[in-house]
């Protein structure tokens, strides 16, 4: 059996010493009307056990996206109703308006991002707007390979951080939205862009880049939270002579991609930062970049103080299907084949579920969680055993999964009490084409494309896996391949959403649907949870509207 990371979760876990201190401090300072303290590093460390707040993108450094609250459960969920809704601010930016944010909640305030790169603060009681910050972004902004989206903000003390589509990083005053500092991270004119929620570790704000579809050489950056000064930069594609450079030929490394566009995780005990990387460039024509193309489609373990690479694990060597590994790396502890291990669990876009030892990067397990037709399996070293004739071709090659993968950026969830891993799964094949690619800065560098199978030949599902062996426990089939994540709760529920606009609750033990609400628009966000005055809340955005649900 698994060793649960933390058991006996109460509604308010005030036996937790750090949290108790924070709550007491909040109580003392709230009445006095003193400065807002959104989230100290100590509070971020305790985020997982803190059911009242949701202080970082995945609800804690382990990236479980798990709410420890139990008020909403299979016995009460039928009474779940909308408490308030918030309609996103209109924008004049052409092409903007797809909302992919995960809101954060710190005390009395909710912080969320809006497309293309705005930040909004709301009163958690009423949903009333407290402030809104909209950076001036040019209509000419490049976003090659993805829409004009933003996935959320980060908090540290009294500061909110937002990474913008035009590759800037802003620090805002949490009380007013005033800019404390801003910095230019990279050149948007060559295709660098930012869509992810930053991750704060100690005094550093850590971000990753989008841009592989424009042939950038991507990196992970850390900035001093106080000053905005860059502390380190680690490239995901090595220069000649650096470790891993033997996996590139000629100058191909200079346009090698390896984007870092999704928020990572952090283990405070090992003091290791875990970050995932995306596809090599060009996407579908691998002839231009022979070799394994390290460290693309990989999991990286970094020293958070220096950015130095400690180890890596590559999921898809020499990827030619755009199977980014930019999925959430979930830190889980438990027994595998009788041995207690600290692991990174990741449901990969390539349709395999992986476990990697998070102390040393050793491959532990892989098994398919969705239909795939490209590999006979994963060998003992973690390397896929390729099937013949599955490469993109001029005439087209049919392969499962599609380029959007068996899952994508939207978050999985892990229940540490039951050892269940939940993932929103896209079941779709595609015909992959290969074409010529010529690098020109600031233009698409793709080398082909795909024709996805049509709607009635595709489907989706919410899948429950045993986190320690990848075995499927149940599935809840969806009408179409989803673009939204899941959140499990200690109350025994899994919240998820569908393209058709439903926000729903499943019984975590069986997958049985227990409650649903039609938001009236497609859902492309992750659920999150918090509490107000002891009342559990669950939030999701459908279309342009954020809905907050509760029992009362």
């Amino acid at each position, binding site marked *: 059996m698994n060793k649960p990371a933390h058991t006996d979760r109460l509604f308010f876990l005030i036996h937790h010493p750090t949290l108790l201190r924070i709550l007491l401090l909040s109580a003392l300072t709230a009445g006095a009307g003193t400065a807002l303290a959104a989230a100290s590093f100590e509070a971020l460390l305790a985020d997982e056990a803190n059911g009242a707040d949701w202080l970082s993108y995945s609800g804690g450094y382990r990236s479980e996206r798990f709410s420890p609250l139990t008020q909403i459960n299979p016995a009460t969920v039928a009474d779940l109703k909308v408490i308030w809704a918030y309609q996103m601010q209109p924008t004049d930016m052409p092409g903007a308006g797809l909302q992919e944010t995960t809101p954060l909640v710190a005390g009395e305030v909710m912080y969320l991002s809006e497309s293309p790169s705005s930040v909004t603060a709301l009163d958690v009681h009423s949903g009333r707007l407290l402030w809104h910050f909209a950076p001036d972004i040019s209509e000419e902004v490049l976003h090659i390979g993805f829409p004009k989206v933003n996935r959320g903000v980060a908090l540290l003390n009294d500061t909110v951080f937002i990474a913008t589509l035009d590759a800037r990083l802003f620090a805002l005053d949490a009380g007013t939205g005033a800019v404390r500092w801003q910095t230019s991270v990279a050149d948007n004119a060559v295709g660098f862009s930012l869509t992810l929620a930053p991750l704060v570790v100690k005094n550093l704000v850590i971000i990753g880049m989008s841009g592989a579809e424009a042939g950038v050489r991507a990196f992970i950056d850390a900035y001093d939270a106080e000053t905005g000064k860059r502390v380190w930069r680690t490239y995901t594609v090595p220069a000649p002579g650096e470790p891993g450079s033997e996996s590139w030929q000629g100058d191909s490394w200079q346009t090698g991609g390896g984007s870092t566009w999704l928020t990572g995780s952090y283990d405070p005990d090992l003091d290791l930062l875990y970050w995932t990387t995306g596809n090599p460039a060009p996407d579908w024509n691998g002839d231009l970049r022979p070799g394994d193309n390290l460290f693309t489609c990989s999991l990286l373990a970094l020293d958070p103080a220096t950015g130095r690479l400690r180890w890596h694990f590559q999921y898809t060597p020499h990827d030619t299907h755009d199977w980014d590994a930019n999925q959430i790396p979930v830190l889980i502890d438990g027994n595998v084949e009788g041995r207690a291990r600290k692991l990174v669990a990741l449901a990969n876009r390539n349709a395999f579920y992986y476990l990697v030892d998070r102390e040393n990067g050793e491959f532990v397990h892989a098994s398919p969680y969705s239909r795939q037709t490209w590999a006979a399996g994963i060998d003992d070293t973690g390397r896929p055993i390729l099937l013949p004739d599955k490469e993109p071709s001029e005439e087209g090659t049919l392969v499962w999964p599609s380029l959007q993968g068996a899952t994508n950026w939207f978050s999985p969830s892990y229940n540490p009490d039951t050892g269940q891993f939940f993932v929103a799964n896209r079941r779709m094949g595609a015909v992959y084409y290969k074409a010529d690619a010529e690098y020109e800065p600031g233009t*698409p560098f793709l080398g082909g494309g795909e024709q996805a199978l049509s709607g*009635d030949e595709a489907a989706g599902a919410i899948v429950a896996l045993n986190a320690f062996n990848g075995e499927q426990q149940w599935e809840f089939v969806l009408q179409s391949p989803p673009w939204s994540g899941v959140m499990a709760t200690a109350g025994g529920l899994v919240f998820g959403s569908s393209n058709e606009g439903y926000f729903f609750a499943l019984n975590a033990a069986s997958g049985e649907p227990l409650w649903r609400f039609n938001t009236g628009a497609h859902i492309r966000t992750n659920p999150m949870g918090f509490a107000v005055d002891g009342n559990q809340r669950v939030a999701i955005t459908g279309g342009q509207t954020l809905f907050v649900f509760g029992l009362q």
Partner: protein
Amino acid sequence: MPSDCRSRYRRNFLLQALLLPLTLLACAAGVSNQPEPAAAAAASPIATMSSVDLGNGQRLFRVHCARCHGMQGNGGEGPSLRRAQLKHASDDESLFTVINEGIRGTGMPGTWAPNDDELWQIAGYVRSLGALPKQAMPGDPGAGALVYARSGCATCHISNGQGRGVGPELTEVGLRRNAEYLRRSLTNPDADAPMSSNQITGHINAFLTVRVVAADGEYEGLRIAEDDFSVQMRDISGAIRSFDKSKLLRYEKAFGHSLMPGYETTLSTTDADDLVSYLMNLKGTQ
């Protein structure tokens, strides 16, 4: 932006003049077949685009558009572009604007890099995907109108506001379908599976026949919408029904089975030619 586009748009007339001889050749070869150019389209660079331009448009389309619209423009995450009428691009200038700037509130981004000439080439290629070759009518459309009335087509189709809406509306069917397709639809309705796209479901079978067995009886109809929990259909009488999928005893998608009867044996060859001609002439209300 829009005024800027228009100024660059005007510059393209110089290009057009240079390309004119090529264009004539291309038209003679049947490469460019813009259906019924509207007044605005007469001034559009697309109307006089060469096969070289269209070839370049295809190359650019594969780089910039195929990721969502498919390598053949058949649709994927984005809608199929193989249609004469595009919802957000009623004329060529609006098509240019959509490609250049994207569509707000949807997954359609502006196209990043191309210059105006290249944007027009993409637009020209997109138009060519939906273009129907000009065809001679096989019969007499006037007589076909009588066949349409006599055969009871209006029992299931609306055309120019008249009839009952069960199957596809036919008001503009002449813009979308050629003689061959229309004839096949009459004689063998099961042969084609029309597709539709929307932002939520992407590319799905339109007018799909579905059959359900519910506690109170069996129902057959054309699917209007479907989600994880429910399905909505329109039955042969035009009535709309909604079912909770979890309460159904049976649910079947009848791929390859149209609810439309085949007219292969009931129409004479002359009647079929006339009816096809009548349908080819249905190009919308003025």
